């Protein structure tokens, strides 16, 4: 069994599964592009697109942040395209990904895959990512009981247990990936 990389966000793990499903080869964060240098010539800012699809020669950057918070990422992407015009990068926004989940009938994931709510928990027995899930967008479309059976919902709330317990809900623009990795590492060591 091929071990999965440590994804920073549940949406990345889900996209990897989708690509696997359709037989599209992918690499996770295989390359880092410097996009800004200090006066001393040292790299002060870089950009590592989430996925590279070697057969299609395209990078994919997936962001599940709220639309209002993607400005910084858009700026980095513009800079990347200026500096590396031959590189093909596709930015997949949170709304795009949620729409994709809706298309595939994953109503629970569509509701949950956003910011911290999408942070990974790990099924350590088989090293496959397991998603924390909130209840479906509409009770007409999926039964809450069904969502509860597949996710980690705190009693009496539609939030995952970690969020309902009072953990931070706002996601700063710059630290989502770092915070995600810290949360992921903390869960591994728990």
């Amino acid at each position, binding site marked *: 069994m091929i071990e999965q990389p440590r994804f920073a966000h549940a949406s990345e793990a889900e996209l990897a599964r989708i*690509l*696997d499903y359709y037989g599209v080869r992918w690499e996770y964060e295989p390359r880092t592009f410097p996009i800004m240098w200090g006066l001393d010539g040292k790299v002060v800012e870089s950009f590592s697109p989430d996925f590279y699809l070697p057969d299609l020669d395209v990078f994919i950057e997936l962001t599940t942040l709220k639309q209002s918070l993607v400005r910084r990422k858009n700026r980095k992407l513009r800079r990347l395209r200026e500096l590396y015009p031959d590189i093909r990068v596709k930015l997949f926004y949170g709304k795009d990904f949620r729409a994709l989940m809706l298309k595939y009938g994953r109503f629970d994931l569509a509701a949950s895959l956003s910011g911290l709510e999408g942070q990974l928990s790990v099924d350590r027995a088989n090293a496959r990512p397991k998603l924390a899930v909130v209840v479906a967008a509409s009770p007409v479309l999926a039964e809450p009981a069904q969502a509860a059976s597949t996710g980690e919902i705190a009693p009496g709330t539609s939030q995952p247990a970690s969020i309902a317990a009072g953990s931070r809900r706002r996601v700063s623009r710059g630290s989502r990936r770092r915070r995600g990795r810290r949360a992921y590492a903390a869960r591994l060591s728990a």
Partner: protein
Amino acid sequence: MAERAARLPDLRADIGEILIGEEEIQAKVRELGAQISADYADSSVTLVSVLKGSLPFMADLMRAISIPVQIDLMEVSSYGGATTETSGLVRILKDLSSSIAGKDVLIVEDIIDTGLTLNYLLRYLRGKNPSSLRICALLDKPARRLVEIPIDYTGFSIPDEFVVGYGLDFGEYYRNLPFIGVLRRQLYETA
């Protein structure tokens, strides 16, 4: 029974906006049919429809083509469907009924968004050695594209909205609407 009825969608009321009307669709289908007839003049073409969404488009398009056509149907499993957890890989749920080796094949799709399904189908069908393999899509949603696919015949390029009708579904409903409409956002998003 009453509870079940309450869960059924209200086909018209659930549509926030009609994106492409019935007459506009039919006019475009006739236009595509004429173009395909001209491009494949003096030969025939095998239309391969991908179930289930492209069924109305296929039915209308084949009648708008004036040259001899053969048709075939395919169905592939979709990610998130019942088969996802068991195999983890896309599966051909219904394969072609006859060989397409040496034939001019036109894939008839309702909508192309990510391009993942079509990318898989193209690889699969190329392995069956058709003489040519082209794509006809009624709707193209380029904003959602993950895999670039060359589309030979495109009906409409549409914005990044959740559309239903004319074969397109949401939860298997709305396929029988004669137009293409934008589904009300509150039906699939949390408040």
